[in-house]
């Protein structure tokens, strides 16, 4: 049976805190509303980000 690949994001979560990784990836815990809002703002920064987009 092929092993389930670990995403780079999941590796980062594990290094940040292995217990938080367990809660999110094993127990399926949802992040707080505040954390989700920060994620939305982060995604906005990624969309508008620095000058990496031009060829």
């Amino acid at each position: 049976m092929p092993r389930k690949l670990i995403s780079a994001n999941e590796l980062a979560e594990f290094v940040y805190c292995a217990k938080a990784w367990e809660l999110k990836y094993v127990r399926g815990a949802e992040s707080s509303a505040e954390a989700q809002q920060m994620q939305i703002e982060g995604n906005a920064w990624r969309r508008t980000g620095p000058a990496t987009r031009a060829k």
Partner: protein
Amino acid sequence: MNLQVMAAALAVLALVLVLVAARSRKRTGIPAGEVFYQDLPGQPFFGETLRSDALGISGKPDCLVRATDGTVPVELKNSSRPPARGSVYANHMVQALAYCALVEDQMKVRVPYALVIYAGQQVRKVEFTEERRQWLLRTIREVELARARLTANRNHDHRGRCAGCGVRSQCDQALL
């Protein structure tokens, strides 16, 4: 306006744009080169998820730049307070290293380093050294073991991490 004048004007405009782009890249630390992969649906060069069965990992860097010394993954982070002395946070580093290994394995190209760009265009370089590659492989193994155990314990003593953690209210090992 005749065609020759228009052509000259366009040539000058193109030169100005090239100079502005080069200056911008120099200021931000982004290497000169072609962006050929982006994690932005609807944009040119929208890329598929990179996968490596050999390494057991997958991921989508924000973009890939084809530079003179190899292919460089670039990751954007919204934190406006990166760590001091030009370093990156450990979680951002392992993510950047994962992209280096994925690009190297899947595209069979040299990957000398990755860039992590924090808000405020603070660019940090993550060299893809052998020591860091080994750390990445150890971390992958740790996650695989934790998956098999279905449990893991807090692996830090930083109250700040707990303060910024989105699942702290559900954690019985939180420091706060």
